[in-house]
């Protein structure tokens, strides 16, 4: 609080990123949020920006109308304020600079956020995902794989979880020896077990082989993994790096497995670029899609030059290779990159998702993230820039994983229980630091922070609003008949994910959404059925028999079910009407207010579109500014929805 010098500034203008439109309102600065409230009383839109979401604040040079402040968020929102007085602008600017750089974990929102749950509810939230149960579901421990307590005290590997699964024949000395030969001690452990063929997906970091070093224990370890699978004489070792990178690492005493030293391995480079390349690529992508009056040519050329979709395809290719090796050849696979927490996590998680329909359900997807990302030590704090950032460590590795899943949902519309809003919501909270799940870099650090005692779990929150994230097309029978997804990797399947990277640019989104419409239909049907049930019970209480019902025709007119306003963030359904807590406002802030007018009828959907937003080119002459016809006043509904 002491950092806030000016809590409120009036007459602030908010400029639209793609058109010349602007709205005026009041800017509030609180301990957790930056809030903009439009002053137009009839259609006041609100924008809530969590400090943790702010990636950068920039003060541009003074203009005649005031001092511009440009705020770029990690959820790809970009807001451009113009503050009338320079001093206010400077105050806000310097407060924000301080607020968005928390110096200790205790300052993170998660530690002050309180969704009004009691301790028991919180505990239950944390118990939702149980990784031991997940390994049991896969069929582990079994006659070939066992739980080892070697890392119980985090002595062998600080960045691994306590519970690790290894081949039964891998003794402690072998494990310890192997871990000494692996970067950061991340020795090969089981991450997914394909029961049908007894094939295992294992992960580790690169070996410290240098130019000639070898380690018998590590060789034994790989042999043990190989022997645990009777279906195949060999195992694949996937190095997810480009060969050049792996070669370069040898000079630093690291490197890759020498096929001569390990018996029966098939070594394979995959060629996913490193975190720095990915960071640069996203940067380029965002520049392109943030350009005003972008031409189709510049868009496509920019998309190509950013290389983003190429990288997405590389990850997908690796995952497909993994899934094929396991499901078709029945071979076990060991995946690693350099440290085994970025590319390795991407490939293992995506590969498992291809193989196992469970991971394509809402609950299963949470388990997958919990297992391959959180527990195995993907460095969320560093990659997502949570605390005292090192810009060289930041990289959109997890975002890429979510995008790969999205690309799959596009190819297989019926295979996933969740829709893209689930992915986007997870992305939102990976950066929000509002829940404890993604804080810190490793399990051990999370325990030190006592997250389970002091913060809440995102998964419980997401499950409580599960119906917002359902994919109405999901068909469990498709999952039964085609348990393994075999995506095509033809170039035209890789599309730009507009709803993620242009999430807050409302004018770009379709005005009507099939997904939402179908969901609304289903929801209102459910609701009506509920009402009927309730009334039936009531009647029974009165002792009236409810059947047979007399048919009644024609059906009485009924107002249309409330239709979602815009695809994005979309006020999913009825639950939205419930009073939003602060955290929801942060994400859904603007929509929360849209509910009231939503009942005024179906027309609103279409008003979502207006000429000015779409930028067909401004009309010249003085005629553009004259009184606008009646329809345009309806458009205020839009103005409100647009930020």
């Amino acid at each position, binding site marked *: 609080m002491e950092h806030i010098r000016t809590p409120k500034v009036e007459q602030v203008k908010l400029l639209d990123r793609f058109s010349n439109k602007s709205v005026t309102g009041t800017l509030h600065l609180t301990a957790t949020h930056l809030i903009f409230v439009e002053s137009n009383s009839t259609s006041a839109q609100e924008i809530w920006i969590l400090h943790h979401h702010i990636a950068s604040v920039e003060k541009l040079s003074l203009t005649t109308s005031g001092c511009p402040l440009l705020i770029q968020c990690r959820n790809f929102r970009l807001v451009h304020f113009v503050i009338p007085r320079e001093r206010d602008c400077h105050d806000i600017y310097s407060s924000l600079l301080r607020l968005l750089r928390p110096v200790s974990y205790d300052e993170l929102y998660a530690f002050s956020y309180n969704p009004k749950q009691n301790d028991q509810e919180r505990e239950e939230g944390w118990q939702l995902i149980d990784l031991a149960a997940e390994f049991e579901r896969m069929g582990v421990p079994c006659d070939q794989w066992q739980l080892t307590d070697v890392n119980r005290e985090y002595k062998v590997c600080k960045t691994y979880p306590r519970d690790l699964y290894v081949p039964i024949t891998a003794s402690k000395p072998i494990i310890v020896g192997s871990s000494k030969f692996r970067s950061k001690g991340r020795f090969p452990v089981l991450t997914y077990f394909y029961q049908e063929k007894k094939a295992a997906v294992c992960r580790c970091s690169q070996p410290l082989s240098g130019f000639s070093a070898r380690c018998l224990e590590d060789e034994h370890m790989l042999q043990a993994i190989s022997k645990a699978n009777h279906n195949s004489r060999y195992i694949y070792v996937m190095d997810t790096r480009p060969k050049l990178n792996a070669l370069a690492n040898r000079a630093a005493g690291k490197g890759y497995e020498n096929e001569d030293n390990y018996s029966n391995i098939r070594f394979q480079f995959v060629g996913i670029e490193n975190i720095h390349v990915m960071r640069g690529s996203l940067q380029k992508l965002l520049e392109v899609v943030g350009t005003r009056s*972008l*031409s*189709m*040519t*510049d*868009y*496509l*050329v920019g998309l*190509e030059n950013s290389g983003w979709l*190429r990288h*997405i395809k590389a990850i997908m290719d690796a995952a497909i290779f993994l899934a094929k090796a396991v499901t078709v050849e029945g071979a076990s696979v060991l995946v690693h990159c350099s440290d085994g927490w970025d590319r390795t996590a991407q490939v293992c998680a995506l590969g498992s998702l291809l193989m196992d329909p469970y991971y394509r359900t809402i609950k299963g997807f949470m388990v997958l993230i919990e297992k391959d990302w959180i527990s195995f030590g993907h460095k969320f704090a560093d990659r997502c820039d949570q605390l005292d950032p090192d810009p060289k460590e930041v990289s959109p590795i997890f975002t890429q994983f979510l995008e790969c899943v999205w690309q799959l949902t596009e*190819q*297989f*519309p*019926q295979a996933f229980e969740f829709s893209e809003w689930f992915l986007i919501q997870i992305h939102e909270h990976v950066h929000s630091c509002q829940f404890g799940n993604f804080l810190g870099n490793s399990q051990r650090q999370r325990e030190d922070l006592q997250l389970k005692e002091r913060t809440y779990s995102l998964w419980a929150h997401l499950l409580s609003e599960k119906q917002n994230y359902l994919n109405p097309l999901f*068909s469990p029978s498709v999952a039964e008949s085609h348990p393994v997804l075999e995506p*095509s990797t*033809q*170039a*035209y399947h890789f599309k*730009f994910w507009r709803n993620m990277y242009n999430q807050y*640019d409302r*004018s*770009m*989104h*379709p*005005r*009507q959404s*099939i997904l939402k419409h179908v969901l609304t*239909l289903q929801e*209102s*049907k459910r609701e*009506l*059925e509920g009402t009927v049930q309730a*009334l039936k019970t009531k*009647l029974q209480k009165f002792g*009236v028999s409810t059947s047979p*019902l007399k048919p009644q025709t024609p*059906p*009485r*007119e*009924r107002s*249309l079910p409330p239709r979602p306003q815009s695809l994005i963030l979309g006020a999913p359904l009825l639950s939205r009407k419930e009073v939003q807590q602060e955290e929801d406002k942060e994400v859904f802030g603007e929509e929360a207010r849209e509910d009231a007018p939503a009942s005024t009828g*179906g*027309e609103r959907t*279409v008003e979502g*579109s207006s*000429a000015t937003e*779409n*930028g*067909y080119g401004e*009309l*010249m*002459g003085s*005629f*553009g500014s004259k009184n606008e*016809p009646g*329809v*345009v006043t*309806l458009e205020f509904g839009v103005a409100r929805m647009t930020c």
Partner: protein
Amino acid sequence: MELSEHIKTANVEDVTLRRPFHPALRGTLCVTSHHLLFSDRKDEASWQLLILLKNIDAIEKSVENLFGYPRAVGSSGTITIKCKDLLVLQLEIPGMEECLNIASSIEALSSLESVTEMYPFFYRPSHLTLNGPWGLSSTEQYYKQTERLWDRWRVSTVNSDYSVCPSYPSAVIVPREVDDDKLIHSARFRQGGRFPVLSYCHHRNGMVIMRSSQPLTGANKKRCKEDELLLQAVIDGSELGYIIDLRSAQQAQQARMTGGGFESKSFYSHWKRIHRHHERGKVVQESLIKLVEACSDPSHSVDRWLSKLENSKWLSHVHSALSTAGLVVECVERDGHSVLVHGSEGTDNTLLVSSLAQLILDPASRTVTGFLCLLEREWIQAGHPFQQRCAHSAYSHARLKQECPIFLLLLDCVWQVWRQFPLALEFSEALLLRLAQEVYASNYGTFLCNSEQERCAAGVKENTHCLFQSLLRPDIEEQYLNPLYEPTDLAIWPSVHPQSLQLWTGLFLRWTEYAQNMEEAREEVWSIVKEHHEQAGPDRTNNTLSTHCDTLTSFENLMDELTIL
């Protein structure tokens, strides 16, 4: 020459057919005057493939004659057939001679130029009769149905013998106060005689969209009083109208050197000209060719694909068509001014922009009937030269003459609108795909010829069936309905950010595996919605209301009983 004389070999046995996503089939191949027929005669439930020869865009043959063998033993040939609907088939034909014969018959018969020899003149299904009115509506009928026109507009039959403008229909709608004499003068001042006529009158404010061709001002800046008066009558005292010129300012200037030109500010003082560059003719055709080529090569890397997609420029054309249509709608709906649209000839991009603008503005044109009427009025009657433009599609090796897939571009744009407003159109993607196919090869006469005049001369109306009428038969129409349709009165402005536009996979990737999953998903959407529509009454607007009517009925019954209690 009789058509049958082209056929040297009519029947070949033991032909192998390969198509995407299906196992190879063996059967008999048969060439008739208008069709290629493949029949798998193995069992009772035989399967047939019937392709209109006109649908064949290109044919490639490769013959293998195994050296050293006696003639005809072991020799065979493969014919690759590339259709205008983008399907590619392969036929393995035993016998080199048969193969060459079949290929040459197909080549000859698929490129017939005489209209009356085309299949629509021979298509006589038992359920259709040739008597009765042809088409959905005429200019006169349209005028009669549109009450808002009666006051200021009239139907002129100045073109009844097609002498004033050969590409216009016999009747057109013009301002009431402009007499036929002035029209004749104005027509002389416009390329191809296409003087400004009414295309659409907005139901909300009475503002209109007019279309014409370019004025023939020439190098020495000729003017035409009657043309000026005609346009003056259009805006009728209001302060301003917009002329959307579909060429860049520079191109419009250059057009003066060849006798064309533009409306100069000094003579048309109440009209404001806005130039928007649109590619036309050959450039667009080449775009289509490049795009289809890019889509049919599965080996591209992501970078290569994006670069090829960009290089084709197809999406850029979609982008500019929708932007300009949006601009027209902005003028009419938001600014409340009338608009005149023209490019050079006024038969291609002009129609594209004016019909897209109507789709965005006018709820009536978003129904199945309304959309087909729009196509009939704005494309067929308005004289889009279908025969020239759709002679070849993306695969043809023939030298380009006047081909140009402007109509396909329109369908693509409509698809983009549908994607952004999936509830606002009564028809589904299936109708657009059907039209994309029919425009290149059809059993019906609707897309034959280049103008009303030609259709009259060829007797199209008397001797062929009308596609639109047949699409509207209730049992057929049902396939093309959008189950999510909920009419809205408002303009549906599409977003034209490049991020909002997409490749029309339903058309361009139609024959790839991609389509399969999508088809399943689409069916799922339909079944969900249909489940809700089960008890839909005959009244369409009731459809959504009746979504829950069974639940509601019981609900109401319970309510009644509760009240009694």
